């Protein structure tokens, strides 16, 4: 050969070939690109938004926290040595928070979350009032009456306006302004009542601060050095813990201003990322379909390339490069949309979102979404690409060549497995809760496999079905099982989409039923908190007289914080996500001689009556598991500033859904003998309560016992219900992306089959089939495939919802047949309609022009 041959073929040759192939435009790849773009948008958007929120939380950390550091104590205020420690390092603001009942002049009463501040408050940020006035003026005592600023929600609930007076405990408080901005509100977490901002003196004047009453004292510290680094701040926290090991306080720094919120954001982000991944997975099916039909179209070109010297490897690399280019286009579109999301959210909804979102480009989130996009495309494309490698050149000479093997070569099977494993590993390793992520991956793999089996079963049943008398039915059945039938693709995309839809619908309706429908009959109507021990008999008598038919149950209650377990400090304990909340702040605890109602001992022995041995404690089983604790382990709990070391003697299972009083930790009475505490009670009406009964109790109790907080269970559930509704909204939005991807895949699959449809229709028309006949056959075909898949989708979706609701959410599950059936019916209608939409044009084709081009 006389040619000057370079040592190696340029590695860019495949790129050059790939680009030449794409010159004809992106037709045939729109579904591919849209599928990748959708999934990447979801993942990039969620990541960018969460990142922007985390940035906001970090930047506004000291405002959200209220200081560079915050020390929180329950029940007691700091001592002079502790105050001296803080003041030697900066300015200190003291705030006290507690729940209380506020009674309006017309007798209406409502739960409020009191926040009593001193003159130094706020150390960072600004309190905004309406009408505008200095905070000191709003809270000052004038003519013997203390002032207050109230959350507009309180004004609305009690139907009052600024100027109105409220009675809280023993004090009369005048509302002087509504509280429009409370700078450190976020750090407080979820509260059940609206805020009532008063002065420190006003709180003391209410007389609600009694030994054992549930008041939290927060000490915000603004360091003298305003430029102090996070390291310096953390150092102060460490010094505080070291100098006052018995203080029993929770110390937070500005870099960790709202750990609960951050954890929730992280958790929700991971959840939405998983939903985004589902969109990508569904989209992956679209990618595989698009690549397969593209390669089908390119069969001749591939064979020609091989005829003139291209190796199978070269063919593979050329088309892989093409897939990567297309995936990159889809991913870049997705990245652009995802990156814009935080800007769009703050632009459109900034004013109503109570979160400090600082919109910014989040390179790491975008990179991750990009990697997910490319990996998904590669994972789904490797299989058809591997098969393209073996397209026989003989195809150029005659149609009847040996058929391609059903499986690609081993190396491509291995490569597909590696790509899927990488995708899985990435999703699991980056997940907040790896167990949930693993379950998700298992379920996704299971659903893919099952849908494949459904398709195989459906095709096999069609193949072996008895010969139908009706020609249309025979044609439809033949279409279901013939080679190259759309059955596997339709089953996969429709099945995935419908399973997801039914899952979301069932979760949604179960949550709604749980939080908005009528309460279970055994559920109490009220909780009464902070009942002073010495007043409990009088309170019992009062309630029995007020509601003679109702049942009042009372237990002692204290607050305590887990300091350490088995010698490991609480902050260093490795808790599972569903148990970590127990360590986050103080928890209610009780003591009793008998096993509490609504719980049963599942391991260990309950202490007997008159137990007087060393301190022991009973733990709720799931929480103990989550904290890695077992019977015999030692737990240190700080109660009323005293560290108590108790041994776990037994584990209980608790029926939380009864909404009765129950506690994670229960002690024998001897442990708290003589300790000041309050009591907590539930009031249950047999057969439920009426609004009138509830109104009477709230008013009367607030008047007779101003220090006792009354919580209507319905209000508490509504507060949770509102939160759940927001979560469900987020889930719905993210699932919508997945459904859109499923619809795209379905549409793409039907479009890909269009060429075959036209061919079939023309041949059949040539042979005498009327359009009506063809149409009937198509309707039967799509209805059969759609129907079989829909039944599977409904079952799979219901099963998934049942698992999530019972196992992850620990709630009762009741299957809601109507929404699931409607979704299923809708899916069948959609598939028949989509299928026919694509087929109508096939029916209209005149045979001659098509036949000429065959």
């Amino acid at each position, binding site marked *: *050969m*006389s*040619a*000057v*041959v*370079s*040592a*190696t*073929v*340029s590695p860019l*040759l495949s790129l*050059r*070939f790939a680009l*030449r*192939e*794409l*010159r*004809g435009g992106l037709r045939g790849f729109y579904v591919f690109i849209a599928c990748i773009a959708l999934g990447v948008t979801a993942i990039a958007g969620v990541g960018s938004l969460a990142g922007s929120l985390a940035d906001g939380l970090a930047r506004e950390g000291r405002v959200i926290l209220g200081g560079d550091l915050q020390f929180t104590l329950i029940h007691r205020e700091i001592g002079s040595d502790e105050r001296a420690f803080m003041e030697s390092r900066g300015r200190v603001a003291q705030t006290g928070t507690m729940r209380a009942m506020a009674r309006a002049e017309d007798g209406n009463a409502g739960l409020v979350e009191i926040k009593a501040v001193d003159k130094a408050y706020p150390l960072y940020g600004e309190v905004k009032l309406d009408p505008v006035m200095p905070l000191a003026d709003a809270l000052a005592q004038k003519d013997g009456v203390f002032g207050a600023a109230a959350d507009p929600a309180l004004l609305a609930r009690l139907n009052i306006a600024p100027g109105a007076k409220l009675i809280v405990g023993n004090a009369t408080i005048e509302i002087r302004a509504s509280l429009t901005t409370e700078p450190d509100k976020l750090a407080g977490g979820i509260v059940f009542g609206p805020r009532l901002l008063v002065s420190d003196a006003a709180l003391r004047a209410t007389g609600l601060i009694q030994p054992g009453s549930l008041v939290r004292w927060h000490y915000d510290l603004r360091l003298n050095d305003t430029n102090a680094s996070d390291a310096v701040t953390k150092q102060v926290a460490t010094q505080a813990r070291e100098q006052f090991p018995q203080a029993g306080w929770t110390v937070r720094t500005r870099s960790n201003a709202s750990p609960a919120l951050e954890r929730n954001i992280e958790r929700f982000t991971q959840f939405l990322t998983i939903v985004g991944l589902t969109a990508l997975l569904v989209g992956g099916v679209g990618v595989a379909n698009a690549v397969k039909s593209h390669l089908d179209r390119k069969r*001749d*070109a591939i*064979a*020609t*390339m*091989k*005829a*003139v*010297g*291209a*190796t*199978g*490897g*070269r063919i593979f690399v050329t088309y892989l490069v093409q897939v990567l280019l297309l995936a990159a286009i889809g991913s870049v579109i997705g990245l652009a949309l995802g990156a814009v999301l935080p800007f769009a959210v703050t632009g459109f909804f900034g004013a109503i979102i109570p979160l400090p979102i600082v919109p910014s480009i989040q390179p790491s989130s975008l990179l991750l979404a990009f990697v997910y996009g490319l990996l998904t495309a590669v994972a789904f494309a490797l299989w058809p690409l591997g098969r393209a490698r073996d397209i*026989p*050149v*003989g195809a*150029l*000479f*005659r149609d*009847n*060549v*040996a058929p391609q093997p059903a499986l690609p070569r081993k190396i491509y099977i291995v490569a597909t497995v590696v790509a899927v494993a990488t995708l899985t590993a990435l999703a699991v390793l980056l997940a907040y809760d790896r167990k949930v992520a693993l379950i998700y991956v298992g379920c996704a793999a299971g659903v893919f496999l099952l849908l494949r089996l459904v398709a195989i079963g459906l095709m096999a049943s069609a193949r072996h079905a008895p010969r139908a008398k009706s020609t249309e039915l025979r044609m439809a059945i033949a279409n279901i099982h013939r080679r190259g039938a759309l059955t596997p693709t339709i089953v996969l995309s429709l099945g995935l989409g419908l399973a997801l839809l039914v899952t979301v619908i069932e979760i949604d309706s179960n949550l709604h039923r749980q939080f908005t429908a009528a309460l279970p009959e055994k559920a109490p109507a009220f909780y009464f908190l902070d009942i002073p021990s010495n007043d409990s008999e009088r309170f019992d008598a009062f309630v029995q007289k007020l509601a003679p038919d109702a049942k009042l149950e009372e237990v002692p209650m204290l607050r305590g914080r887990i300091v350490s377990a088995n010698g490991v400090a609480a902050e260093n304990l490795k808790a599972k996500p569903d148990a970590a909340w127990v360590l986050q702040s103080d928890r209610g605890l009780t003591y009793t001689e008998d096993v509490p109602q609504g719980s049963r001992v599942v391991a260990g022995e309950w202490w007997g009556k008159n137990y007087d041995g060393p301190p022991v404690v009973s733990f709720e089983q799931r929480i103990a598991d989550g904290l890695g604790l077992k019977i015999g382990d030692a737990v240190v709990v700080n109660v009323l500033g005293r560290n108590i070391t108790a041994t776990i003697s037994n584990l209980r299972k608790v029926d939380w859904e009864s909404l009765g009083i129950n506690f994670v930790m229960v002690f024998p009475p001897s442990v708290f003998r003589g300790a000041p505490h309050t009591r907590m009670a539930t009031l249950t009406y047999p057969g439920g309560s009426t609004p009138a009964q509830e109104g009477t109790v709230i008013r009367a109790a607030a008047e007779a016992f101003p220090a006792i907080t009354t919580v209507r269970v319905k209000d508490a559930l509504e507060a949770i219900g509102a939160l759940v509704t927001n979560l469900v909204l987020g889930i719905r939005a993210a699932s919508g992306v997945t459904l859109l991807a499923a619809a795209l895949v379905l549409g793409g699959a039907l479009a890909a089959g269009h060429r075959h449809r036209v061919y079939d229709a023309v041949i059949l028309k040539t042979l005498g089939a009327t359009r009506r006949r063809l149409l009937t056959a198509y309707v039967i075909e799509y209805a059969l495939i759609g129907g079989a898949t829909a039944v599977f989708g409904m079952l799979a979706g219901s099963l998934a919802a049942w698992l999530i609701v019972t196992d992850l959410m620990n709630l009762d599950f009741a299957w809601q047949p109507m929404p699931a059936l409607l979704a299923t019916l809708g899916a069948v209608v959609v598939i028949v309609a989509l299928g026919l939409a694509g087929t109508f044009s096939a029916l209209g084709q005149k045979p001659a022009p098509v036949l000429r081009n065959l």
Partner: protein
Amino acid sequence: MKDNTSAAISLAGVNLSLGHDAARVHILKDIDLDIKRGETIGLVGPSGSGKSTLLMVMAGLERPDNGSVTVAGNDLATLDEDDLARFRGRNVGIVFQSFHLIPTMNALENVAVPLELAGVADANGRAARELAAVGLGERMQHYPAELSGGEQQRVALARALAPNPSILVADEPTGNLDEATGRQIIELLFAAHRERETTLVLVTHDAALAARCGRVVRLRSGRIETT
């Protein structure tokens, strides 16, 4: 034993069946054939006699069930699929009845493909010269859809000749063309054979065309009837 050293193509005891089970058809039966370097061969026979299949075996596109195939000194049985592809790229130029140009590439790029695959440094320059040689110097940037059938076949011929193969095989190269255009293509094929001393194997139904070849190999029912 035959002496394969001077033969461009040597087939001995070649059998080939296609299809499975009941549909299996014995297409080539005990084919022995030697084609010398620089020879021109016309493969003729009725439809289904195995002409195209024999051509595919010679080009390394189909593997026989048994027998040996040696082309340009290479025992094709020892080559795996990728080696065969490289072997074709270097030694065999193929012209199809249906042209089989790549629709997304223009004429120049179509001709450059085998050169690029072989790692030739000046692939485009050589492709341009080949196109000029078949009279398409002015149409290099045109895509297949913009060319007539005759022009497409000329591009296909330029593509087959571009790597300077020692063997040129053509499967009914005029089958899709009118008579006048077909004649032009045949002239080009024979000119290439003369100028480059390539071995030329033609499958054809055209008796006149076959008569122009140095030797005619007639097939019937998968066997060589006369050579």
